[in-house]
């Protein structure tokens, strides 16, 4: 079965690193998930057994339907996504290439960080507020049921204060740090080279996990 219609914009978008072999593989996977439909809904993700153990499962699934990630001009959540959208999301995880110049690298890095930023910023207002950050930490610790909420909260608070001090520096007592904007987010990630870390290898096209 060939790649569905609308593949021309797909290949131009992903012509950098995703080969046709990988597109084939992803297409197979898409069909598995969607049960041979043309689109996927949120419920389809429940059929992946390993995803259940993931503490941030909700955010990951949400990210697939986030219109900001799908490069659409509008905001909010999509109801369902087709294969092209699926590939768009996957393209955020393509590995770095040797022949990229400085500007491309910078854009590459920013794209990935933007994806992450959207995951943290759940209310789509362009900054990560304290509550959202607390929510992130709570989710990360959600695998441990006996933990008190206080611990998650204080970790998030501490992290937020650290972020504020990195991004803004000295603050008077009356200034309020609204939240982490994207620029601040970039600053925080300076030490970590995301270009090399945030990738998934599609090299091995034979391993296809089973769904229910």
């Amino acid at each position, binding site marked *: 079965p060939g790649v569905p219609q609308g593949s021309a914009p797909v290949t131009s978008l992903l012509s950098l690193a995703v080969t046709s072999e990988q597109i084939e593989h992803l297409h197979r996977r898409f069909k598995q998930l969607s049960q041979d439909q043309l689109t996927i809904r949120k419920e389809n993700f429940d059929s992946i057994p*390993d995803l259940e153990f993931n503490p941030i*499962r909700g955010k990951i699934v949400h990210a697939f339907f986030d219109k900001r990630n799908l490069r659409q001009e509008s905001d909010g959540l999509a109801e369902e996504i087709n294969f092209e959208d699926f590939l768009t999301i996957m393209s955020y995880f393509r590995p770095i290439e040797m022949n990229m110049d400085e500007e491309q690298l910078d854009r590459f890095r920013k794209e990935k960080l933007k994806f992450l930023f959207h995951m943290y910023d759940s209310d789509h207002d362009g900054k990560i507020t304290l509550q959202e950050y607390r929510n992130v930490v709570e989710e990360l610790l959600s695998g441990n049921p006996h933990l008190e909420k206080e611990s998650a909260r204080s970790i998030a608070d501490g992290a937020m204060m650290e972020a504020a001090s990195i991004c803004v520096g000295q603050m008077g*007592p009356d200034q309020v740090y609204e939240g982490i904007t994207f620029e601040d987010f970039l600053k925080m990630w300076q030490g970590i080279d995301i270009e090399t870390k945030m990738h998934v290898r599609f090299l091995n096209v034979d391993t296809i996990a089973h769904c229910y």
Partner: protein
Amino acid sequence: IPSVSSIVPESCLLIVVGLLVGGLIKGVGEKPPILKSDIFFLFLLPPIILDAGYFLPLRPFTENLGTILIFAVVGTLWNAFFLGGLMYAVCQLGGPGLNHIGLLANLLFGSIISAVDPVAVLAVFEEIHINELLHILVFGESLLNDAVTVVLYHLFEEFASFEQVTILDIILGFLSFFVVSLGGVLVGVIYGVIAAFTSRFTSHIRVIEPLFVFLYSYMAYLSAELFHLSGIMALIAAGVVMRPYVEANISHKSHTTIKYFLKMWSSVSETLIFIFLGVSTVAGHHYWNWTFVISTLFFCLIARVLGVLVLTWFINKFRIVKLTPKDQFIIAYGGLRGAIAFSLGYLLDYKHFGMRDMFLTAIITVIFFTVFVQGMTIRPLVDLLAVKKKQETKRSINEEIHTQFLDHLLTGIEDICGHYGHHHWKDKLNRFNKKYVKKCLIAGERSKEPQLIAFYHKMEMKQAIELVESGGIGKIPSAVSTVSIQNINPQTLPLERVLPALSKDKEEEIRKILRTNLQKTRQRLRSYNRHTLVADPYEEAWNQMLLRRQKARQLEQKMNNYLTVPAHKVDSPTMSRARIGSDPLAYEPKEDSENLPIITIDPASPQSPESVDLMSEEPKGCSGLPPSPEEDEEGLVMRVKEPSSPGTDDVFTPGTSDSPSNQRMLRCLSDPGPRPEPEEGEPFIPKGQ
């Protein structure tokens, strides 16, 4: 004028010292001692390897494991055979002096000289502070090539006594490589698990905890060596396996003890090894053959360069972060030979290898060349080529959160696209670890503690200890911020007393540390941390303090709070205000709270400096305080921090200090220990006082 130590690496100086000592002994007429192989392998080498294995940075190591293994195994094999083969050719052409050296002898020689030496690499790379990737590549290679060296050495040594070498022998030799390496790792893992399990039950006899770590590791080494398995790999595996569990179980002091003893022993061993190398050079019987030695040196270098080039070309096909030519140069240049090669050569017996002396001479020459020439020039070359240096990043809670988030995200994506990759298996391993292994090997409630919480506690503990050890405001981390909880969450009512985030016994531990360390200056440092604020019964003027503090609410918001963890601003004075509290009666709240300098009123000393630099504080400031009569004099005393000097044993130097002495100690500064046990002996200050 650059000092000697910035040009010449320590290893070179030590060899020179050895040469001098050897020369001296010989000059007196005595016979200088030679580095005997069993002393080397049994006593001098294990501490260094254990130190390396126990503090191995696991994340970069596992990320680059494939690359490291290829360099270690294939690279060493290539070196050995290439060198052996070429030397055989040289010997055949070399005239009567060399003709009799057979192929096997040359191959054996090649296998001895081809292994990159971990001791030499450590000694040189420690000082140049190269970026983590290169460091772990060269260092990991030097550790893992031991298996190859052991196999090749024993193989060729045995074959040399055979009449005929059949294909079967070669195949068996090939298989024995797997047995040696995997067997060594297995032995190490077994002993590591036993050690971790033992440490689970040591909560009542804390003093012998370090002993178990050393004992089990050494036993792993000896057991492996006994069966001709790779002792080095066993040692590394034992250290790596036992570390997370042991650290979760043992007390804070035991952790410090282990760290210090390992560093001490490994430093002593390293020094002795290099000195003995020098002495042995003077003492040994040498047989200098120009052709042999020079061609050995020459082919060694060529083999290394060629090997690295070819292997990197191959490896780069599979790597995400490709190795640039600069990286390749450093990897090739960092292939230093050292004492292991010498000891292996020394082990050869005269019966089978009459040319042993010549071999030893050649080995020593290569060692000298690599250590002196390459060791000395690598530092300017690194600067010249602008190779990326090690980044002094302080692990922050943000980074930890992000890293974990990213890990889970990538695992999730891998699951979604159905690809069982790197992250998937790592996640599975982590889950297995959490579910079964941790429950067995970690005592008490710590077995259920998630990593993020553990990290957070570690950071808090570290900061508390930093505060204590610096005695005050002296060493504020560079990211001093005035950011407080008000800045990020304005809805928090000022009077709201948020419950402490830590559990009761964690608080108690932190409080205990603070308590035991603040004996003499207890009166000055009432508390600087919200942890000590929950109803301290033995602070008699405490309530007075609280009242005063409530008056000075304004002050608090402006003070530096350099604990980045959220401050419950209600009762969290900083060091400065704690000093105010040293004499509660003298304290007067300042009304103009525009820009408050750090107030330090030290009643002991006549002048009250506005800004405190504890470095310059006189010790008499401490002793000037009247010791409170109830205080016990036993136990830890608060010492004024002396200016850092080389060799200062500052375990918890804040990460920002960058002086050479601290960098030197960088090897010693792994992450801080875990929290101490709640019931650690008697409290130093009796309760109720």
